[in-house]
């Protein structure tokens, strides 16, 4: 009777099950998990000494304190030996991050493993070659010959790598961490010199937070305990309950509920007041992160809903209130910040030359946020506590700021507010991003060192490709057909360009051998400059892969050892391999290694030994750890004292080995790791910038933000004349709790695909009433960039006149409607703001209405 397959008993891991430590493959929080693997057919017993949990399973587990082992935490996979194995993945109780807690994403880790019982069985198992309109199986040997032949052919003709375009992840966790990132870095930056490279979720190779880094503040500077200790938490463009769920539920919520007061008394100075925490949410939407807190502590939550794009004006206004009310410590500012640059900040950001009342009136007009709310926020962020103790405020921002218009100024304004109020480097403070995924970045230097102020901006590779430039496009573990801005135009152009090559290859008969195919591909690429050869390396057939000429199967989480850090503590842990990859799938680093070695063979055959040697970077990489240790050599010397931690790269792990990580297990070690100059021991960094900032002189570098200049032309066009009425809605976009990014796994799990079968649009009740819409109706949302069919959710999460589109859904991505604008200072897109209209489509899809819940997601009272 059940809608989806349900279970009413689960197999018990026997005493002799293999046990592995790992960390969730999904979000920035990086919850710890334990994995148990044993052959199907065997089972443990109910007594503690009969099962690998060591628990008395004859009794029900106690709520909260007990071990969660639910239906979604077991699967059966097949090993390389052809035998079936049970895989159980449960939240780790010994992880300081989640303490046994877990989210709807991590709770399904087991369901994502390759299994013949589930939709995950359609993992890519061997390389696929496009022949006309079909994908045919080919061997790795042929696939590598093809890759190497085309890459070298392009280099031979061009004398450089400018026609090679790459889109590759740079993160940890699911994509996998330091090992794979180092493999990519060595191939693309040391062997090849690729400058047309973009990161998984954006059109260029850049930091999303140069506005903070160029001030001397790396974006991961706080530790998870700070969310328990803060007097005030600010969530700025970060819906933590839905995108860093356990961080919110396990650490922020207890603070707001007043359950961490004893921890505060312990950590604070003598005599300093310690009270239940306050929460400020700054977001155009009334998010669940706000409404939950409102349910538990109405008087200690504040919601500011600025107009789209105006957050930096709001941040500067809060800073101005701080200045007017004297909520700053001049001795701190003088000792720790560049006071020459501070003058520029006072003039351009705080605008001290404009009288306060006039300034605030302007800000109210631009942001739409009432002055009283701005002043209240300033009090909650920085007003000293009784006894003149400095308030402790933790500010966490994410894509609402990063993917805002004017990325650089938005980020800079927020971190400057935090430094002005000394809310960085103390327990209970910090100012950084929440993170989307985990991190694990180690590579040779990137092509672009920084923003427009530091040698940038980086090249927009989307534009490079849609303009008809480049000949080879290699997409690695991301799906730009769903994720890139202005995605509809991008899809159309890449399809057109790849199809030109496909058709030309078929003209006069498909090439019969791989060598002939290499030759013909090169002939076509150099006779039709618009033709494009595309390779996709991934774990599933993605939307982008449908247009690829070659598809390479990669190993997923748990199918190789890897190391990553989480975002809220920079906690480095070993994610142990617990099962084999399906078929011939390989870890990404190994694919990069083999491509390199095959190119090297071609150079050696021509006697070009020096060039060949550059491509043999991976010849001694036999294990995952070999790559991890090789990567460590990129970092600077970490034999420094605690007061010099700011000089270290944020992810420096020099000296750490897999053996060390196995010993520390879920406790991990917080990067940057130092080797204590006296003892030589490895020491983690709990929180950053207590002593110095990350600049040559250790001082924070102020920056004067731009004035309000209105909206960029790509969006301003919708605000002129008749178009204001044609496209009457503001549109913002974002993620939903239930699914992860492009839902590459989730779309294959009935628990998720039945719940969110279609992309959805949130519509305010007033607008819905006016337009005769109700939840479950299907609408087309459209503008001049693109369109999509969305299911309506009527909710007060959006204000009247605003729509929210869930991003990256496989049945239609919000990004089809997003403009091609990027911040001229950083090349970061504005994914979260445009204009559109909607119209109800005729008819309905009753089967979808029958299974998808239409209940309001932000209503908890």
């Amino acid at each position, binding site marked *: 009777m059940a809608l989806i397959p349900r*279970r*009413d008993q*689960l197999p018990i891991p026997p005493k002799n099950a293999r046990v592995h430590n790992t960390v969730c493959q999904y979000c920035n929080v990086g919850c710890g998990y334990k994995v148990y693997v044993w052959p199907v057919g065997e089972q443990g017993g109910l007594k503690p000494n009969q099962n690998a949990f060591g628990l008395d399973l004859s009794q029900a587990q106690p709520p909260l304190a007990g071990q969660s082992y639910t239906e979604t935490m077991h699967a059966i996979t097949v090993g390389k030996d052809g035998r079936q194995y049970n895989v159980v993945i449960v939240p780790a109780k010994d992880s300081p991050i989640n303490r046994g*807690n877990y989210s709807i994403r991590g709770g399904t880790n087991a369901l994502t493993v390759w299994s013949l019982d589930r939709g995950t069985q359609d993992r890519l198992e061997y390389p696929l070659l496009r022949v006309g309109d079909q994908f045919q199986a080919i061997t790795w040997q042929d696939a590598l010959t093809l890759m190497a032949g085309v890459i070298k052919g392009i280099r031979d003709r061009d004398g450089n790598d400018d026609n090679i375009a790459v889109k590759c992840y740079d993160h940890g966790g699911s994509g996998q961490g330091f090992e794979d990132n180092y493999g990519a870095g060595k191939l693309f930056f040391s062997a090849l010199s690729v400058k047309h490279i973009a990161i998984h979720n954006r059109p260029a190779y850049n930091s999303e937070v140069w506005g903070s880094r160029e001030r001397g503040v790396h974006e991961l500077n706080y530790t998870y305990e700070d969310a328990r200790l803060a007097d005030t938490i600010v969530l700025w463009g970060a819906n933590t309950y839905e995108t860093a769920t356990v961080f919110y539920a396990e650490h922020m919520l207890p603070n707001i509920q007043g359950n961490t007061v004893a921890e505060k008394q312990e950590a604070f100075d003598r005599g300093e007041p310690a009270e239940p925490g306050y929460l400020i949410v700054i977001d155009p939407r009334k998010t669940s992160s706000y409404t939950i807190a409102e349910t538990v502590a109405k008087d200690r939550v504040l919601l500011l809903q600025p107009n789209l794009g105006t957050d930096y004006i709001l941040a500067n206004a809060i800073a101005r209130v701080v200045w007017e009310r004297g909520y700053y410590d001049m001795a701190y500012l003088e000792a720790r910040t560049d006071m020459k640059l501070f003058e520029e900040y006072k003039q351009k950001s705080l605008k001290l030359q404009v009288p306060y009342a006039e300034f605030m009136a302007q800000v109210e007009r631009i942001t739409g946020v009432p002055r009283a709310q701005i002043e209240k926020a300033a009090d909650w962020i920085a007003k000293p506590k009784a006894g003149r103790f400095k308030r402790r405020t933790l500010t966490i921002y994410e894509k609402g700021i990063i993917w805002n218009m004017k990325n650089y100024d938005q980020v800079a304004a927020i971190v400057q507010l935090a430094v002005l109020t000394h809310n960085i480097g103390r327990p209970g403070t910090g100012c950084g991003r929440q993170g989307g995924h985990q991190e694990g970045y180690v590579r040779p230097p990137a092509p672009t060192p920084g923003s427009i102020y530091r040698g940038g901006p980086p090249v927009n590779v989307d534009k490079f490709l849609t303009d008809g430039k480049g000949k080879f496009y290699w997409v690695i573990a991301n799906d730009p057909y769903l994720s890139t801005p202005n995605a509809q135009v991008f899809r159309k152009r890449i399809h057109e360009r790849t199809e030109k090559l496909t058709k030309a290859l078929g003209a006069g008969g498909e090439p019969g051998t791989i060598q002939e195919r290499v030759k013909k591909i090169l002939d076509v690429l150099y006779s039709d400059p618009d033709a494009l050869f595309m390779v996709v390396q991934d774990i599933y057939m993605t939307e982008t892969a449908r247009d690829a000429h070659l598809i390479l199967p990669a190993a997923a989480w748990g199918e190789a050892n890897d190391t990553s850090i989480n975002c809220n503590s920079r906690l480095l842990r070993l994610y142990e391999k617990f099962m084999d990859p399906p078929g011939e799938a390989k870890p990404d680093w190994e694919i990069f290694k083999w491509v390199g070695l095959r190119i090297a063979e071609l150079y050696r055959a021509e006697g070009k030994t020096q060039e060949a040697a550059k491509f043999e970077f991976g010849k001694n990489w036999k294990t995952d750890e070999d790559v991890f240790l090789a990567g460590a050599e990129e970092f600077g010397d970490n034999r420094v004292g605690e007061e010099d931690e700011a000089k270290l790269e944020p992810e420096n792990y020099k000296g750490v080995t897999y053996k060390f990580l196995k010993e520390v297990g879920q406790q991990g070690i917080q990067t940057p790791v130092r080797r204590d100059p006296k003892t030589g021991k490895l020491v983690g960094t709990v929180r950053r910038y207590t002593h110095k900032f990350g600049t040559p002189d250790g001082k924070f570098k102020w920056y004067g933000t731009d004035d309000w200049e209105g909206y960029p032309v790509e969006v301003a066009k919708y605000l002129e004349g008749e178009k204001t009425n044609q496209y009457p809605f503001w549109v913002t976009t974002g993620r939903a709790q239930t699914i992860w990014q492009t839902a590459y796994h989730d779309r294959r799990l009935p*628990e998720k695909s039945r719940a969110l079968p279609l992309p959805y649009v949130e519509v305010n009740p007033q607008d819905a009433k006016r337009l005769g819409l109700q939840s479950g109706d299907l609408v087309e949302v459209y503008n001049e960039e693109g369109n999509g069919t969305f299911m309506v959710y009527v909710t007060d999460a959006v204000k009247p006149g605003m729509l929210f589109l869930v991003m990256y859904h496989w049945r239609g991505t919000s990004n089809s409607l997003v403009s091609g604008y990027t911040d001229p200072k950083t090349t970061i897109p504005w994914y979260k703001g445009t204009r559109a209209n909607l119209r109800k489509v005729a008819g309905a899809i009753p089967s979808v209405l029958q299974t998808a*819940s239409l209940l309001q997601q932000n209503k908890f009272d």
Partner: protein
Amino acid sequence: MTQTLTRRRFVKVTVAATAVFTAGGRAQLWYAPSLTYPAVKVANLGQIRTGQPIGFSYPDASTPAILVKLGRPAIGGVGPGRDIVAFSALCTHMGCPVQYENGRFLCRCHYSMFDPAKAGQTYQGLASSWLPQIPLRIDGKGDIYAVAVAGLIWGRVKNV
């Protein structure tokens, strides 16, 4: 070409399927109901009012469950309006009690919410497993019986 499933052939197919179930990996994918559940009377049709939940214990005396008439058709709903459903009252996330309020089940430990009309699906929150639904049967007198549990009750490896 279509084949008619004769009774004899059906028996053969069933026997073969059972053999695979016990011998192969699927032996450890116990799709509910894989256990024997008691039939327990919860209420009579005449007693229940729309939106007013009735607590009961199922499948044993120590396990809370909730029956409710939703006033809107539900997957697995019984009664004239196909709107009477019952669910385990332990959140599948970490075992806290769920309450039926404002047309849905809500857990106040971490704010997971489940839709009773849509098979107990988690439409918000942390619970990766949907709330276990308790199939109901109504006899000729209008007595409503709980007859099984579709889904694993939190904190156990086996429902009964």
